[in-house]
């Protein structure tokens, strides 16, 4: 695999291979020295055109744990601010001969454009409202740790599906791993023909008790201005996951950051069913696995996943 641009590009074996590598990295992270020399001397560029806390920090830490040199560029205060085109920015950064470019941008297809103009491997860390594949992979990883397998699991994705790249990537990833996905939200925030992605659509939470997993999406307050919602109060009444709606056998996920008291009530965030901090921890090992897959995977031939280098056996 040269790039990670879209979950839609990945087969189930591709996803399972990355999961396997991530599991072995999680063992590395239990050691005292949490660093492996896999990418020593190689450069990873983090190029973020949009604000991000967890995605950018987790890619940064993933690169550092793999001993890569890291360059972080944010649009604010860089030449991007001065109107430099994406292509020219990529040409500039490519002059450092990076092994990988991790990009987040507000435009669908931005990562694919970057891939067309650099020899580096490209990781899509969110392109517009299109895809967020590393989020989907870490969510699959988190669920596999709890459920063993997603086969036959019933997963409800609840909230603002229209504006959510997480929803798009996760529908692909969950269904590819054998789960049944239902999206649920106000009709104004469900995109037209979303069934074409292979999910069912509901507009109320009446059937949510059948779900094994409830995946709540972040509700952005700015949607109120466009009249997508008559009021936040009405949204909360109809779609908030609270202790009445969350059954003890169900798992609860959220991509963060959470609006407490909007999509989730305070008590479910702290409930034992909530996997929200596990998702963040999974983000690190899964992003290490993604960088490993793209930057080392191809060199190891086709005889199955290569061994993860350890402190005892450096690469």
């Amino acid at each position, binding site marked *: 695999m040269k790039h990670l641009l879209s979950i*839609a590009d990945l087969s189930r074996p591709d996803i399972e291979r990355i999961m396997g590598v991530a599991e072995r990295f999680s063992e590395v992270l239990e050691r005292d020295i949490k660093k492996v020399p896999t990418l020593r001397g190689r450069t990873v560029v983090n190029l973020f055109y949009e604000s991000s806390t967890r995605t950018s920090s987790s890619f940064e830490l993933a690169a550092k744990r793999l001993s890569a040199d890291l360059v972080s560029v944010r649009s604010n205060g860089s030449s991007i601010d001065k109107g430099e*085109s*994406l*292509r020219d920015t990529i040409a500039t950064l490519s002059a450092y001969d990076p092994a990988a470019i991790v990009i987040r*941008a*507000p*435009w*669908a*297809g*931005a990562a*694919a*454009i970057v891939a067309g103009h650099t020899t580096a491997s490209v990781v899509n860390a969110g392109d*517009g*409202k*299109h*895809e967020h594949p590393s989020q989907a992979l870490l969510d699959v990883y988190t669920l596999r740790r709890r459920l063993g397998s997603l086969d036959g699991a019933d997963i409800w994705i609840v909230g603002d599906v229209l504006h959510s*790249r997480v929803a*798009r990537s996760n529908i692909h990833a969950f269904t590819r791993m054998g789960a049944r996905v239902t999206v649920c939200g106000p009709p104004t925030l469900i*995109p*037209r*023909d*979303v069934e*074409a*992605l292979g999910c069912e659509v509901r507009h109320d939470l009446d059937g949510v008790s059948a779900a094994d997993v409830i995946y709540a999406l972040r509700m952005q307050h700015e949607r109120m201005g466009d009249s997508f919602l008559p009021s936040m109060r009405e949204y909360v009444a109809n779609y908030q996951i609270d202790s009445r709606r969350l059954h003890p056998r169900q798992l609860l996920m959220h991509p963060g950051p959470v609006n407490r008291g909007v999509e989730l009530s305070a008590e479910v965030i702290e409930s034992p069913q909530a996997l929200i901090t596990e998702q963040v921890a999974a983000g690190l090992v899964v992003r290490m696995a993604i960088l490993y897959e793209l930057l080392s995977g191809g060199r190891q031939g086709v005889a199955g996943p290569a061994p993860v280098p350890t402190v005892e056996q450096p690469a």
Partner: protein
Amino acid sequence: MSGRFSRVRLSARDADPATLLLRGAHVLDPRAGLDGAHDLLVRDGTVAEITAAGAASAPPGCEQVEAAGLTVLPGFVDPHVHLRTPGREDEEDLESGSRAAAAGGFCAILAMPNTEPVVDAAPVLGSLHERAAQEAVVPVGFLAAITKGQAGTELTEMAELAHTGAAGFSDDGFPVADAHRMRQALQYQRLAGLVLALHEEDPSLSGAGVMHEGAVSTTLGLAGIPSVSESVAIARDVQLAGYEGGRIHVLHVSAAESVEAVERGRAAGVQVTAEVTPHHLVLTDDAVRSLDPRFKMNPPLRSEADRQAVIAGLRSGTLGCVATDHAPHSREEKEAPFEEAPMGVTGLETAFAVLYTDLVLPGVIGLDLLVERMTAGGAPYDLRAPTLARGAPANLCLLDLNASWTVGESGYESRSDNSCFTGRDLRGRVLMTVARGAVAYRNRGFSIRLAADPGGPVATRESA
């Protein structure tokens, strides 16, 4: 409709009237009832003789083309192009745009007024005619804006613009969003004459959309432009035109509901005509999955059901003509991410070959229907269709329908290269175009083949 002021002008630079003999070509002109092998003699810019193949004799000094195996059609008329002049001559000017038209077999084109400045006052329109008389290789007509600056608030001086030679009125690029303003334009049309050519879009429905709303926009996470944003605007304006007794032409119809809205208006006796672009006839929103901005235009590529509906509309005549909506953009503008790139694609040089390859060869429509629709672009503007009938001014194109070519392989006559058909292998190549009696275009490969392939169709020239 001719008001008391209107006198539509098409302007082109002076050129020597052609005298040429096309020998043994398949001459096809459904309007003139021509469909067979003939010799066609153009003398001093006029169709002088159409005889049995081999029967015509060349007058002295006449250029002769051995055209057996080639096809002669009446020249095409494109009622909808953007020539970016004045203001963005880096993208297109009257010379390059009219040359692109000639290369596509067009013998007349009408340019839209969404330039910088907008063609909303007589001096701007007058200077465009003067420039066209210096630069244009095929006759060019110009529409003037309906509202000042195409801002949708104040009507232009429509009577004076009509008197200065406007071909019609349009705010193309933008809808006349306010229904009252549209009604006033239809009322004022009784004084000024000329058709109102309407870009139909309800901006409150299309919003920030960048592609057709449907499964593909949902998959890509792109804001959608619903098909009803077009059809509700058409339905409104058809009703207003009926109420005021006005006359409208609907630009670039893209959606099934829109075809229905035009059909209902025509059935009710409203004076409404409509056009369709080659890209809406052969492409769907599936092409946008590539996120290549060359597939970004307004109205957007729609669903397969919409495509079938516009094909049916072309067949029935509800969509009476093909219009390219040729919209050049500079490379740096188009090389942006899809959401950031401007709307619009070029189309003059590919229109016939695209429709011939994708609709005629597979048997979706007949060649005679395609010729009829590609020559009918002037009808909404009361311009006579080109014909090959004897005595008519020579407006024709010579094509090799068997020739294969790859779009963009040898560049474009247009100054811009944002064709959504770049790289496509097409059949049907324009070899020569005669517009208003003068040769406006010769394919470069055509004259080269003269020596290289003596066995095939050969162009020969006998000089005096």
